[in-house]
């Protein structure tokens, strides 16, 4: 899957793959570089070794903010949390992102995935998402123009602190 990584500043291929339903999940997680559905993760996490061979990610729907509390104790084990938007209208994903970043101090990659519009890029980044994986990756080139469309902001979020000062240069070198 192609995605836009704000920290790397470019479009990359996803280094992680979705958990294969046919595989032995404990072994697959132990091998690392896998994305596990969040509900599955909470069932398996106590049986997984402390040091998997590669990064672990979890995936939850934007419609499941209730899962955030269940992930809190794992935040230092997770390299990626992917929030899947069934619809770009589901604003819960934005609150999930800010809660993870600002209340729980989640430091890993936070991915917005699914049906999203380039026009939402700035909102997503300001809420703390640093990877964008729209269901229509053909449009990724369109996205870049939207991040720096505005040089003024009227609120403060934690992610804003990582954005470069407004109105000077692009927020991210993408």
């Amino acid at each position, binding site marked *: 899957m192609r995605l836009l990584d704000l920290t790397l500043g470019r479009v990359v291929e996803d280094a992680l793959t979705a958990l294969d339903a046919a595989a032995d999940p404990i072994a697959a997680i132990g091998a690392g570089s896998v994305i596990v559905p969040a509900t599955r993760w909470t069932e398996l996490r106590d049986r997984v070794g402390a040091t998997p061979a590669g990064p672990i990610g979890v995936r939850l729907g934007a419609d499941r903010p209730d899962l955030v509390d269940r992930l809190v104790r794992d935040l230092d084990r997770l390299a990626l949390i992917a929030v899947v938007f069934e619809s770009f*209208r589901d604003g819960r994903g*934005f609150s999930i992102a800010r809660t993870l970043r600002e209340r729980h101090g989640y430091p890993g990659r936070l991915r917005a995935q699914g049906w999203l519009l380039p026009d939402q890029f700035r909102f997503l980044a300001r809420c703390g998402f640093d990877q964008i994986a729209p269901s229509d990756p053909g449009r990724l080139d369109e996205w870049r123009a939207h991040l720096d469309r505005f*040089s003024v902001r009227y609120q403060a979020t934690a992610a804003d602190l990582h954005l470069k000062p407004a109105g000077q240069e692009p927020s991210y070198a993408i």
Partner: protein
Amino acid sequence: MQLYNYRADDRRFLAERVAEFRDQVARRLSGALSEDEFKPLRLMNGLYLQLHAYMLRVAIPYGTLASHQLRALAEIARRYDRGFGHFTTRQNIQFNWIKLEDTPEILALLASVDMHALQTSGNCIRNVTADHFAGVAADEIEDPRIWCELIRQWSTLHPEFSFLPRKFKIAVTGSPEDRAAVRVHDIGLVMVRDDAGAVGFEVLVGGGQGRTPMIASTIRRFVPKRDLLSYLEAIMRVYNLHGRRDNLFKARIKILVQSLGAEAFARAVDAEFATLQGGLATVDEAAVARIAADFAPPPYRPADPAAPEVKSVAAVEPAFARWTRTNLFAHKVAGHTAVIVSLKPPGGIPGDASADQMDALADLADRFSFGELRVTHGQNLVLPHVRLGEVPELWRALDVHGLATANAGLISDMIACPGLDYCSLANTRSIPIAQRLSRRFSDPDQIDRIGPLEIKISGCINACGHHHVGHIGILGVDKKGDEFYQITLGGRADGARSALGKLLGPAIPSARVIDVVQQIIDTYLAIRCPGEPFADTVARVGVGPFKTATTQERRDEAA
């Protein structure tokens, strides 16, 4: 002039917003954006697709408008619409005949006078409204517009709260006397003093109209100024995460507050607030001070001893006398008055003003009111700071432009939604009902005798005409293709007395509405105590006597 003074940053932001919308329209016209995708984007810029054309709703933040801005609105009406604008119940203005491809130019024109159509629709925090007598009323604790402006800025393209379950409306009053209908808003803020004398906000949540009308509940008696935005973020986050998204008609915050109960909702907000208090949204005192400086009182002038006295002119000019009784509002500064300009002439469309009238009013605002105007949620305009000695001259000038109707607060000062004449949601027309009522009740002596009375008319259950809180509410319902109307009595939106109207009886056909209202009025005149306004009579006797009077008539007709 009391007006938020746009800084270079604000202007750059609006220019960037216009550029963005220009790009969005171009992508829509080229097909790069589907209508499904374009819709929420255009709605965030106030652009609706109505029955016959696009409608553009322009924000007039907290109802404060400068003369040069009103001239720009007149120019839009003339150049891009059919010579009219329509002032709304949310202190906005709508243009009903807009072409999609013109909208970027219109937004650019608006930006040139520090105006925009941002967040006047869509599932985001809408234009924040305020008491239209802010800065004028003597009972005011503080000018609420300072806080409205702060909220306007904070809510502008908020990264977390731009895709809410449903629209979100905030109203602020700085007076104990509620002229902003705060109890029928998603959030109502009432400025109050705590025991130590510090000024803060009582916070009410979950009021609203629409299909499920509700009066808001207080969830916190006092929020200090510095915590205002943090507390609002806490409410917004609880709503954003837990408000229903599966059913459009149950998605407003009032449904969430109702289903959890106000106390449990307040606890959820408190838990969120505990993590946000003192954080990033803490109010910056210096920013507030800058805004407050913009709302410093205008340079009021002492009375001119040579100017004619209102009383002496009224003694020889009965029409003027009548108008001064209804259309003036006491100003906190001696020698001044606020003047209500009625947009409800007999037979007119409530809230409509022509481009020429807008230009004339802009000139009158410059001459008589420091260039400032207000839009009321009752769809009228206000010249807020007029010297008493100049009132007769102003009245004559208003009269020339058909703007001196003496009916503010009286039966013909109606609110009506656009209805089926424009709106794609409506079941019935509202405007013709309002027009017929205003003709029936056009005799100045007659409406004077009836006294204070608010009729509010909605063309469908979405209640944009606020019928639930009308002293007489009229709701249009479709019955097998015919326009019928339900009548409610006893609604009101005035602070602690706020109430929802009670149904008078089954819906009646359009042709009977005017006569039934007449019967209601005749009943009221027969049973009222001396000096008792209509709403108080209904509160005292209930719907019963009115039901009897109106159904008796129907039986007589059937016989």
